[in-house]
């Protein structure tokens, strides 16, 4: 088994386990909780719910992806995992790329499944649901990269979790705008822009987080 796959397997086992980095079910539960709460807050006007529901699900997905920031990098930094990996000749960038993939696997596909009951609770139309699923498919990898980047930048800081959200949210705005923008009407252009924002974050995140962790280890 290649070392990258080994790292990925280890990350996934940690995320789906019950240890310090566990709790992969949390984002999905959070997402479903928001989808359930929203109709209580705005009332049961079916037309209003169907019209605004897609956007609310996007916000819920964004916040759900940022929820585990605190657990993404910090426990391993404190355990000295990155020191060990460095000794064994694994670049931080490579281990963080594996972590981005693991983080995405832990919440991306589950959220896409959870969006089905979520959409049913809001009474969202089939075409809008399809656009929502496509948007989540291209947008959530960017959210995963952003989460790992914010986690890496704040891992060495005492005020980690809240700060991570503050760093990630402005950079998540383009994903939200284009993702939610693809829900109605002309979806192709907005989906392409969601994908572009996602790719930029995926390209930057391993290097930004890797450099931050190298700086934190000194």
């Amino acid at each position, binding site marked *: 088994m290649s070392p990258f796959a080994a790292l990925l397997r280890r990350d996934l086992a940690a995320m789906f386990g019950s240890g310090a980095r566990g709790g992969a079910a949390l984002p999905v539960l959070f997402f479903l909780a928001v989808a359930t709460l929203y109709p209580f807050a705005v009332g049961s006007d079916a037309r209003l719910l169907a019209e605004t529901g897609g956007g609310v699900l996007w916000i819920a997905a964004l916040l759900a992806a940022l929820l585990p920031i605190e657990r993404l990098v910090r426990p391993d930094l404190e355990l000295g995992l990155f020191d060990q990996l460095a000794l064994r000749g694994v670049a931080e960038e490579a281990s963080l790329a594996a972590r981005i993939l693991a983080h995405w696997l832990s919440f991306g596909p589950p959220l896409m499944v959870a969006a089905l009951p979520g959409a049913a609770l809001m009474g969202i139309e089939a075409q809008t649901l399809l656009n929502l699923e496509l948007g989540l498919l291209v947008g959530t990898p960017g959210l995963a990269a952003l989460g790992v*980047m914010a986690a890496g*930048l*704040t891992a*060495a*800081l*005492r*005020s980690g979790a809240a*700060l991570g959200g*503050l*760093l990630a*949210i*402005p*950079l998540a*705005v383009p994903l939200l*705008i284009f993702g939610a923008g693809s829900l109605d009407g002309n979806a192709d252009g907005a989906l392409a822009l969601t994908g572009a924002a996602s790719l*930029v974050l995926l390209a*930057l995140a391993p290097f*930004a987080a890797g*450099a*931050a962790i190298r*700086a*934190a280890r*000194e």
Partner: protein
Amino acid sequence: MHGYANPARFLKIARWLTPVLLVVGLVLAGGALAWGLTQVPPERLQGETVRILFVHVPTAWLGMAGWTTIAGASFAYLVWRHPLADIAARAAAWPGACFTAICLATGSIWARPTWGVWWVWDGRLTSFLILLFLYFGYIALSNGAAQSEASRRIPAIFGLVGAINIPIINRSVEWWETQHQRASITAGTSSIDAAFLWPLGIAVLGFTCIFGGVLLARMRAILAHSQAEARLRRKAMQP
């Protein structure tokens, strides 16, 4: 260039350059604002409200120049590891955030009578609001790193990442159909009448001098603070 990176030499120059920049900036900006408020004719369609131009445009420029300073200094710090570069980035954050906030506020006040609304979510306004949040994120991260005595390279990395927003702000009026009008001044040509362009140019120059003066003053303050801390630490080490 590396000669100026010596803190002692930097302080020697900054000591006299700071007041010069501040005084020149205040005179130029004050003069341009007085000119703009009293002498400039009302605009063809907007009438008197056009005068807010002389605050809105310089602060918009400095809001973006502030992050460009952060990004440039952060890059220099990450590559050459020179502490002055980090201090420059740290010093640029608050003035940049203030100018960004002033730009957003004046823009909003200007939009109400001219466009008919306080705010629209178009590409230019949204990307500029994101710039303000990036400043807040940078300031919080920089302070957090200082409190945790973490590496100064951590905020520098965020300063570089946030720089992707600058070209987006700049090109937003070309890429999207925005409520905000397109650039009036582009490489050598301007669609602003000379009656507005002259005071505007002087206001931009004046505000830029003020920004430079505040930047240098803040850099000196941060340097003095860290030197005082180092001295205290040395004292504490002595038996």
